[in-house]
């Protein structure tokens, strides 16, 4: 549900304009925090950004529906909060230029995807203390996807309320959240389940083939540094 990108002209400017400003501020903050990183990391980030877009483009058949993955959680765990937010911003910008998701709402789309991916690494660190890397990776992906979906539905709810309050000619009848929830909630549950299972597959393969690509737990990193 999180990467059903919000198009232009649906949400009021009072919502997307602060979203755009916040996203740009976060981009500046993340760029500042990553200025010591090597260009190789930028190249890796770019490759994973392309993977996000490729995963969004490919349809995974799940019974009667075709599901498009977003990989918010796995990218967040692999890259960390600052880099993954940049990746989600770039992915939203590229998609907006291709007519998928709006130009004015690049900020909101990036915030929805970026919030989930930014939470994934801290979540992974937390779960890693109790579970195996594979289980921690999947659990972090579940949290990331759940947060994205909740944010998406929260934004839609605020958007519906804003339409009701705006008093504009297209103000609508006040907004019926039930209609949105009827479509959104099942898709959200399906999204969390699908992304978690895919993340499990990714982590299982990486743990077998290139475990060094999976981040070490925070306490392990601290011990290594010491």
């Amino acid at each position: 549900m999180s990467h059903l990108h919000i198009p232009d002209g649906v949400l009021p400017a009072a919502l997307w304009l602060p979203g755009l400003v916040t996203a740009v501020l976060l981009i500046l903050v993340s760029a500042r925090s990553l200025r010591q990183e090597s260009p190789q990391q930028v190249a890796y980030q770019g490759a994973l950004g392309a993977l996000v877009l490729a995963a969004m483009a490919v349809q995974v058949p799940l019974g009667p529906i075709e599901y498009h993955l977003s990989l918010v959680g796995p990218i967040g765990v692999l890259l960390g909060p600052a880099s993954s937010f940049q990746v989600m911003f770039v992915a939203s910008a590229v998609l907006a230029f291709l007519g998928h998701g709006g130009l004015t709402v690049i900020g909101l789309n990036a915030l929805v995807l970026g919030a989930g991916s930014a939470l994934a690494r801290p979540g992974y660190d937390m779960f890693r203390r109790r579970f195996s890397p594979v289980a921690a990776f999947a659990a972090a992906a579940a949290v990331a996807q759940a947060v994205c979906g909740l944010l998406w539905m929260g934004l839609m709810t605020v958007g519906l309320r804003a339409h009701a309050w705006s008093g504009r000619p297209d103000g609508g009848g006040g907004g019926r959240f039930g209609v949105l929830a009827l479509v959104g909630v099942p898709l959200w549950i399906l999204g969390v389940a699908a992304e978690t299972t895919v993340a499990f597959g990714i982590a299982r393969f990486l743990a077998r083939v290139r475990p060094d690509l999976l981040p070490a737990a925070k306490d392990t990193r601290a011990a290594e540094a010491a």
Partner: protein
Amino acid sequence: MIDALSQIDFLASANGSVWHRASALGKLGLMGGLVLLAVFTPSLRLLFAVHLVAWLLAGTSRVPLRLLAAAAGYPLFFSVLFAAATWDGTWEAPLRLVLRPLTASLGAVWLVSTTPYPDLFAPLSRILPRRVADGLFITYRALFDLIGRAERLWRSLRIRGATSVPPRQRLTVAGEGLATLVLYGFERSQRLYATMMLRGHSGRICGCRHYAEMSRADWLVAGVGALVAAAALAWWRVR
């Protein structure tokens, strides 16, 4: 979606409409104006006019109609959902909620199908932080390579019966397939970094400077812009 992306990218460089000869900066300005007008106008007549202009632009860019409909129709599902949730019994509100995103996505498809990506991203890279701007170029360059690989991977999974197993197993297999793409992405980034170093990477990927080179075709872009501006002045408050 994969086909649409690849075709749009191909048309941006290979097609030869009048819009292809116009500068990226002019087209970005016109598209930005169209989107903002569509989003902010309280006038339905002006919204219709802007929508018509978007169709005119897209229709004259030599993009096949099927591709245009596939690419521009993406926001329809979302808009219809939102329109259903806010429906007040009139036809005006849903019409606006459908026309606005459709106009914006038509404008976006017109822009990307007539502008090669280095020209399109170059002005943006001037205003974005270095890392993000570089990420924009690298992501787009890697996209078609990875999409091709993802497509081949999915095809081979289907041929080997991965789609006939239960959904949970299907998704785990899909995840393992995607992990091979993560590995490929990592190795690709190492090769790319080595290539950048060999070619004397200065710490920033600079887009080409053609994006601001004006040609005669820019007069046409300016003409359309003036027409839209005149319509906006005349009809801003007309219902």
